[in-house]
């Protein structure tokens, strides 16, 4: 293939915008991230809007009979998923503290968040 742009190396950005247990969007997005990781393709995860709830610690999906896909986030290192970004504005709008259930989450101001998304060649949103 020709036309390699200078941002190709950043691969896919997945934007998560939905709360974890009111729909399947978070799990469906996670499945894509794991596949990209398994195929050694660069993938970054972004959380904004109600999507930030997916990162908040001390949730137990089994209390509402849902398989807890959030537990899988802790395995990201085995899938080479290193970039996890969360929108600071979305957190503060919801009065959420930066207590996440995974390590190495990068909290970004809105403009930095946008810049980080733009570095990726493709974007999928869930």
């Amino acid at each position, binding site marked *: 293939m020709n036309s390699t742009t200078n941002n190709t190396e950043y691969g896919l950005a997945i934007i998560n915008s939905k709360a974890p247990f009111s729909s399947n*969007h978070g799990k469906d997005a996670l499945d*894509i991230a794991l596949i*990209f990781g398994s195929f050694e*393709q660069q993938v970054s995860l972004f959380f904004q809007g109600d999507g930030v709830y997916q990162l908040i610690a001390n949730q137990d999906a089994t209390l509402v009979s849902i398989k807890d896909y959030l537990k899988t986030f802790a395995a990201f290192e085995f899938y080479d998923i290193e970039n996890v970004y969360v929108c600071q504005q979305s957190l503060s709008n919801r009065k959420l503290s930066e207590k996440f259930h995974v390590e190495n989450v990068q909290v970004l101001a809105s403009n930095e968040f946008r810049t980080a998304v733009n570095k990726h060649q493709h974007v999928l*949103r869930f």
Partner: protein
Amino acid sequence: MKTLAVVVTTPPYSPLTITAINYLEAALATGVNVIGVFFYQDGVMHANKHINIASDEYQAIKQWQNLHTRYQLPLHICITAAEKRGITCDDNAQINAGFTVSGLGELVELTTKASRVVQF
């Protein structure tokens, strides 16, 4: 050459699907190289043979099949999403003509090959 891949997550009865089809028709008519459509989430319902939409409403499935016939446009469905929605993929008996049973690996393939990915 620039290549395009499209991800469809909306079902046959969703107005967003019409937008996706119109977009693809315009792209294909102007000679854009569309390397494939990947159906995910409720999008896999387009492959379900048992979908029946009133004849005076938009016939999304027929439109996909037209695009497939006219342009050999590959239509991939995610098998896990399909089986979750009652579409058995063991044989092609339940799958609409023109659709191919694939997995998320195909989405990886399409996004790595395409210069642009558009999601509906």
